[in-house]
């Protein structure tokens, strides 16, 4: 399925989406009758693009197309709090894609950020099964915040999602990566410099490095 087919469900073309006001324009085109079709075709579109997006070379053109669609989804999720079931199903593809993309090209980076923002919005609204999306969000935000080029805004997003760490099963060997990233945060200048970073580290210390030795994560931090 091509991007034109996805956009045709909203009766718009890719030419309509050029310029800064594109997501607003597309959002106006969304209505209860066409939005379910749009989400179904978007899920199909992203699944089809997944192999090219996650390949080692990274297909920048595919990433660009996926970015257009994901921005429309983000706009919808920020504006509308009661979402159809098709949207919830779409989130599974978004989560998978977010954890799978490992390319550092411009469009791919922007795509990952947008996909994560969609999940963050769902979590912020405490939508159905929102805790399922925490592992993807936290892994992505932790990795981004520890990059040398990271900005304060990423730390802020991570701090806003910090409660997600309480939902993680830290016994599981899959959490080893997150635990190591958390430890690295204690030596990261951006975390030490910003108030958001400080609050995040205090939260980690309070919840995982103390209170009682029975706290699951304590065993890993200590």
């Amino acid at each position, binding site marked *: 399925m091509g991007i034109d087919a996805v956009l045709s469900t909203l009766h718009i073309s890719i030419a309509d989406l050029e310029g800064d006001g594109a997501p607003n324009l597309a959002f106006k085109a969304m209505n209860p009758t066409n939005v379910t079709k749009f989400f179904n075709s978007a899920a199909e579109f992203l699944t089809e693009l997944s192999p090219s997006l996650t390949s080692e070379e990274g297909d920048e053109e595919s990433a660009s197309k996926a970015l257009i669609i994901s921005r429309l989804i983000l706009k919808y999720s920020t504006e509308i709090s009661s979402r159809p079931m098709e949207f919830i199903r779409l989130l599974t593809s978004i989560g998978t894609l977010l954890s799978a993309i490992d390319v550092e090209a411009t469009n791919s980076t922007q795509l990952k950020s947008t996909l994560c923002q969609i999940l963050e919005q769902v979590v912020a609204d405490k939508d159905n099964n929102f805790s399922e999306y925490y592992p993807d969000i936290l892994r992505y935000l932790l990795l981004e915040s520890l990059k040398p080029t990271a900005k304060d805004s990423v730390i802020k997003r991570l701090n806003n999602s910090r409660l997600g760490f309480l939902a993680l099963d830290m016994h599981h060997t899959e959490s080893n990566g997150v635990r190591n990233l958390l*430890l690295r945060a*204690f*030596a990261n200048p951006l975390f*030490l*410099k910003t108030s958001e970073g*400080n609050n995040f*580290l*205090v939260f980690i*210390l*309070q919840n995982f*490095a*103390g*209170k009682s*030795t029975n706290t699951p994560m*304590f065993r890993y*931090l*200590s």
Partner: protein
Amino acid sequence: MEPVAAIIRNNLIAVSSAKELAKVYGHLLQKSVSADSHSPDIEETIQNFLHDAVYAADAKYFAGLRALIKSFHDVNRSSWLEDFLVRIFDPIIWRSMKCANATVRSQASQLFLDVFPLQKQSSKPEECDAIIQKQFDQLAQLLKDADHKVRAIATRGVCTILREYWDALPISTIQTLLKYICDTLAVDTSSVVVRLAAISGIHDILSQPLSHSMMKNLLPLLSQSIYDKSDRVRLEFIKILVTVKGLREIHFYDIVSVDTLFMRLVHERHSAEIVGELTSLLFNSFFPPSEQGSTINKEHVKRCLNMIDQNLSAAEVFYSQLHLHLPTGAIAKFVAMLSNVLDTTAEALQASAGQLGPQSEAGPVSKHSKRSRTGKAIKEVRSSSMVDVALYIFSSLICADQRKPLSI
């Protein structure tokens, strides 16, 4: 917690600005411990940091850990935090201050002086008193330590404590500590650092208004510090006098006589900083602020002549610093007034010479003419001194532009 603690340790050792980083870590740890989320593991980690600080071999690492630990007691202490600090410090600090190694003792005493007072809010009043008394005894012991570094640290710390907690400490304890500092440590011939710590500590205490009545009796004990062989000690002592000048209860001339200050002015003429402080000290005495609003008046000239009479060399040094305290216009006016006095004196001299000439040739010298000759001699000396002083003021004005020291 141990991996986090290891990261903090490694960072404090590796980073050049360890103190700043330590403050951040201290702030994080301090925020993560609170009464409602009591964490024995973090408590143990902080105690380990305290232990590391006491036994640190590297001064930079010690400074970092000290800053980290300070974050816990620089905040408003709740009763929970007070108990927490006692639990952290109690097992380590007392025995460390009695350790054979002087570095360990000095580091332990710095940490103890930072955290003072350790109070157990949850215990009985008798226990609280015992803990406080133990600390007073420890302060006194630290002042008598065999190592000069420990004595200097203790002196500075005790003075800070006295300044901060003057109204909360028993008067007998304050008297004992201050008497020892003024009587013994301020004249500790074995170490300049100790003497300097004592003098600057006393200076620090003067910022506590409640201390003034007691300091009035103790400050004269320090008067010999003006002759100290160390420049830094002398300078710090003169700074005390400058501070005292601004206090109502104490007069600086009760501590050191004005004649002594004049003599020091002459001796210190090559030390710009000390001369600067001495001039500041004496400035208002010779340039009292006038009520009429004019910057310079006859009173200033009169006091200048008095100073010339008392100590010419001191006057030369004092007036050579005038450009640092007065605007150029005011100095010009002052010099003009001095030259007026010179003119008047010269005319008077000429007139008296005209009167005396024929008489002295005519016959024996009368009592009146004898007195006139003496007066003439005094006037001659004084006018030549005035010329000197005027020249110094002129030359200092010229030097002021180039900020060069005046070569006399």
